[in-house]
Structures are given as C-alpha cells and as structure tokens.
C-alpha cells in the first residue's frame, strides 16, 4: 500500500471510529463505513490538512470511496 493510502486509512479510522481492516480501497464512506454527509466534510478537511491539497466542493462530492480519495490526493499533491 502506498504512503498516501496508509495516511488516508489512518485518518478514516480515527475520524469514523472503524476497524482498520474495513478500510479497503473499494469501501464506500457512506455505505460501508457508516459516515454521513458531515463526516465526509470533516474527512475532506482532514485530507486537506494532512496532504496540503485543496479539495473544492465539486471535487469532494465525487469522493465516495477510499480509493477516490487516494487517487485525488495523488493527482493533486504538490
């Protein structure tokens, strides 16, 4: 697993209070990890802080799985 993936996973586990094993690349934040829309706002904020990227609202709306987040961050990181 890439460095980005590890750090994303850590943030998801911490914020959503889920088991690390359930944070697979395909896992949907809402359907599989019990997040609601505000949790996603919080996760996006945490990703922005951790990786120094800006994730605009329209892009954030398309991030629905763990892998979506990793892909976006890898593509936009400075």
């Amino acid at each position, binding site marked *: 697993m890439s460095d980005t993936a590890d750090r994303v996973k850590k943030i998801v586990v*911490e*914020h*959503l*209070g889920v088991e690390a094993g359930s944070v697979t690349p395909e896992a949907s934040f809402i359907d599989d990890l*019990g997040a609601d829309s*505000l*949790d996603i*706002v*919080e996760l996006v*904020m945490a990703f922005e*802080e951790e990786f120094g990227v800006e994730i605009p609202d329209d892009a954030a709306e398309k991030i629905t799985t763990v892998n979506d987040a990793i892909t976006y961050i890898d593509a936009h990181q400075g």
Partner: protein
Amino acid sequence: MRRVVVTGLGLVTPLGADVETAWKNIIAAKSGAGTITKFDATDFHSNYACEVKPADHEYGFDPDKRVDHKVQRQVDPFIVYGIDAAGQALEDAGLTEMSEEERFRAGCSIGSGIGGLPGIESESLVLAAKGPKRVSPHFVHGRLINLITGQVQIKYGLMGPNHAVVTACSTGAHSIGDAARMIAMDDADVMLAGGSEGAICPIGIAGFGQARALSTGFRDEPWRASRPYDKDRDGFVMGEGAGVVCLEEYEHAKKRGAKIYAEVIGYGLSGDAYHVTAPHPEGSGAFRSMEMAMRKSGLELGDIDYINAHGTSTPLGDELELNAVRRLFGNSIANLSMSSTKSAIGHLLGGAGAVESIFCILALRDQIVPPTLNLDNPSDNCAGVDLVPHVAKERQVKAVLNNSFGFGGTNASLVMKAI
C-alpha cells in the same frame, strides 16, 4: 394526578463514574478536588477544580463504555458525560429493551448550564488561526445543550418529549421537576431527566474567575477549598460531570415490578428579580421556591429529614440560603440535617441539581446523610442547624429536599420521599 417515581440512577462525578462508587466516596468524606490537569492553569485565578478522573484512575470515567468513538470525537465532554449517565439510569431501571409503543412514551429532559464551552473556545481559536473552512462541521451540534437529549434519544430510540433545560446552576433540578410534570400531565410514562456540565477549560475558569465566583485561596491544598458554611470559604470550586434519573409513572413502574427508589412529590420554582449573579439579600426567591415545593408535596415541615443544600461555598450565597431555610422551617429546623455535597465534588453547575438529587435519593435508600467537608469553623449564623460536618451521619431519612439556585436569579426545589 399521575404519580411519578424514580426507578433508575446514573452518575458521572469527580468521585466516581457510577452510582455506587461515587456514593461510597461521598459517604467516606473523600474530596474530588485537585490541581487542574486539562490545561496549565498556573496563571489563572484558580488552578484547582474537581475534575472527572481519567479511565485508568481508581474511580475514573471510561467514555468507551457507552459512547461511540465517533460521537466522542464530535461532541463536547458535557454531552459524553450526559449520554453515559443517561445510559446508566436506563440500564438501572431495566428499560433498555422497550417496544416501539413504549418508546413513543419515553422521553428525555437533560440540560446543561453552559454547554459546550471547551469546544466553542477551541474552534474559535481554529477560526482565528486558520479561517472558516477549518471549523469542524460538527461544531454546532457538538456544543448545543439539547444534544445530550438528542444523542440519548437516537442511541436508545426514545421518541417521547425531547426537552433540555438551561437555567444555569438550577438546570438539573428544573430538568427533573419539568420531566416529573410531563409524566404527571400524561405527556410520557418514562423520562430520563437530569443535567450535565463539562466547562473546565481556560475560558470557563477565566470567566468564572473574573465574575469573582471561584475559590482562589487554596492552591496548595485544593481539597480544603470547597467549604460551605465555613468562615474561611472564598468561592466555589468548579466541578464537572452529570446526573440523570429515570422517572416513571407509578402504575407503569409497579406493573412491571420495577425497583422504586423514591417518589417525586414536590417541585417549586421561582425567580429573584434582583441581580444577574448575586442572590436576593433576603433569600426571597430561595424561600418561595422551597415553600412551593413543600406546599405541593403535602408534607408537614417537620417531615423533612434531610436537605441537600445549594451551598456553593460562596461568602454570600450560603448564608442567604441558610436564612431562607431557617425562615421557612422555623422550629422544625431542629429535626433535619442539611449538608452540601459540593464540599466533596465541587459545583457541577448545570449538573449539580441532578447529581445532588441522586445523593438525596441514596440518603433515603441507605438511611445515611452525606457530610459537609471542611466545616471547621461554622459561620455564626449556623448555630442550631445540623450541617453534618466532616463525617456522614446515620439517621432516619424518610423525606428530602434539594435546592438549586442559579445566575439570573433562578431557583428550583424538589421534595422526594421513600415509598
């Protein structure tokens, strides 16, 4: 009128995070005070408080027992304490498995004096340092006072009255009184009722310090700082925690064979209409609150065995309450014991009235009244009143009165008796 009884209790306090531990320590005359650990309070008016202890402490609080990790992250401590105390009360009452029909008739009335002060403080600092896009999306609903009730109702599926009192240090008593009326008026059969506070944070200590309300003179011996009725008292010691009772309509409780701790028989409430922080100089509001509760209870003055006083250890308030008690009870004052458990756990503000009502109920159960710690030199005004100095006292306890008074000139009194 439908009768209202208490069938469950829940406590999170600086002396224990369950009912039996907290009560054992109260009766053993322990103090929950110490140097503040949540932040460095060296340069503050007061650097001591009665904090809820961490999970690894002998009588600490483990939030993981009843509060989801995700919720813990999103909300202020007062909500976490409140959810846990409410869960304890519901479990104690044996009502965690109610049908949907029953849950339609089960509600909550759990308030707080000032709510999510630590989170308001910390997120304000985030706003100032990093701007609006870094403020938590959970900021608002993680700080709102009615979100103990909100969280508890979601967790346990309760769909009856969803209520939260905000009357400063009278919150806990008003919460129980209001909830008892909701049951009496047939709005619900079961109500979780109480109060919570978790405001030991820099802005909280600074604010109460600037209001000249806090004890400041006992930095080296914080356990001596809360000393209601003593000549050397110099203000209250901030506490934190929660108390929640499960109230239930009497026939409902009897039908399911519930254990009944006490009956709520009197509720009085009044306003001082005098000053935002200072109590009325003749204790007029306190007097009328107690008088109303006694009148509603149908008891004689001589029937009250124990008063859990508001007694915050402030120079002015303690004397005025004592005067009001003296004026109402007259010669009957010789029959009763009156103590302030704030001497042991500090002032839980919005949680105080509920936690102290639970101590009253336990006094009824165990026929013992808790002590007033540090009462070394009672004020001149105390003569002829049994203020239970230093050690708990075994005695007959058939009926009890609890007083709570708050900023804004708000007063509440509850009368309860054994069944």
